[in-house]
């Protein structure tokens, strides 16, 4: 369960989040829609404790993130798989080493067991053949798949995805969105996906919200959002056509 109340965050004079409220129940997949620079990624980073909010409260499974000490923050992060916008794969390691590194630090399991598990997850995302390649040798879509495998290999209870389809062609975007949905259903994780891609949000999420002026202005199912009489919201639905 993730509950955010009154979340505010500014960078200098620029107020990015301005009292954001959000509740995502256990096992739910929620998409945050919004144009570039509206604070979608900032919201995710606040949830993971990577950014400290100026005001408000974030509760992840009964731990208050913004007031957590290092030990509590580690407890929260052990539950989180984070898919970064550019993948953020460690470029000095091969793809499988990226997963093994994540596993051995998150769960402290022996290397041989971590290697087996990593191979299984890379098979799941269709990258078994490329597991010994470096990130620089992969295409954009393959990097996203590898990053998704790295996020999921720790078997997180919460999956945070930052623009999972940005920079990908429509076919690969659809494949990645389907993959996230399938893995969400398979592992029953609570997921928050930030995106400006309405097709991705439609495939991945149970509910979605539109982030505007630092708050979630509208929330509901994708069909409900499609019916809202607001030019900015309608813009998301027009763009894919």
């Amino acid at each position, binding site marked *: 369960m993730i509950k955010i109340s009154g979340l505010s965050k500014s960078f200098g004079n620029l107020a990015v989040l301005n009292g954001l409220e959000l509740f995502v129940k256990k096992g739910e997949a929620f998409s945050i829609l919004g144009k570039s620079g509206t604070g979608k990624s900032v919201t995710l*980073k606040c949830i*993971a*404790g*990577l950014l400290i909010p100026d005001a408000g409260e974030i509760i992840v499974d009964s731990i208050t993130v913004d007031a957590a000490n290092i030990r509590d923050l*580690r407890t929260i*992060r*052990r539950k*989180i798989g*984070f898919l*970064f*916008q*550019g993948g*953020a*794969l*460690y*470029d000095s390691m091969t793809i499988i080493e990226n997963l093994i*590194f*994540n596993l051995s*630090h*998150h769960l402290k399991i022996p290397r041989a067991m971590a290697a087996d598990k990593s191979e299984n997850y890379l098979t799941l995302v269709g990258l078994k053949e490329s597991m010994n390649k470096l990130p620089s040798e992969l295409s954009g879509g393959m990097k996203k798949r590898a990053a998704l495998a790295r996020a999921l290999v720790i078997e997180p209870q919460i999956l945070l995805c930052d623009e999972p389809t940005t920079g990908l062609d429509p076919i690969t975007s659809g494949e990645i969105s389907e993959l996230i949905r399938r893995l969400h259903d398979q592992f029953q994780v609570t997921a928050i996906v930030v995106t400006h891609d309405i097709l991705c949000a439609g495939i991945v999420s149970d509910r979605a919200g539109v982030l505007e002026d630092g708050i979630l202005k509208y929330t509901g199912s994708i069909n409900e959002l499609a019916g809202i009489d607001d030019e900015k919201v309608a813009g998301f639905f027009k763009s894919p056509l």
Partner: protein
Amino acid sequence: MKRFFTHLYELASFSFRFVKEALVPPYEFGELVSHLEDFGSRSLPLVSAIGLLMGLILALQTKPTLARFGAESFLPAMVAISVVRELGPVITALIVAGRVSSGIGAEIASMRVTEQIDALEVSTVDPYHFLVVPRVIAAVIVLPLLTAYADFLAIIGAFIVMFVTGDMGWQLFITSTLNSLSISDIVPGIAKTFFFGYIIAIVGSYFGFRTEGGTEGVGKAATSSVVFASFIILIADLVLVRVGIILFG
């Protein structure tokens, strides 16, 4: 000017954190070995060339002056003492700063802008502990070894000059060199390279960590690392020379 002092203040608190972090497990031995290889063996060709050239140039430059006073026989002693006490440590540190500090700055900055450092944090890995501590330890171990090697090659360079001009045989050169050097020359010269190694790695890490923006930020981090590290090495040398004189005469 204000920005310069802000950097100095932030750099000081960034570097003090190392003392605490270095003592706390887990110890990243794999990372340490990889950086020892990177900073050490990959710096060898550059340090070899610079060390040899340093000795050749120093001998060629000072030989005519010594000859004017009929004191050519003092050349091995003069080169050995200058190189071991001052030129070897400082020039090696500046050269290694150019290669290693900029490399560390660019690498960590690149990890910052591509969110790899955020990914480490989410993986419950302390980025400072994982990225900074092994690099600093590796630089502190490697620089004294590289300096001793550069000193040796510089003395060889000076010998080449004396041998080619036919002014001194190798036995006399070695005897003069060894007789001229004492512990009070060698210890301060090598001791300060531990500080220089620390400065090289900590400055590169600091500028890498505080990078903002995209590729432009990476370039700035690399440049600032070299400029700041070189400047602080010279300031530290000024202090350490004075300390060396007080302790060893």
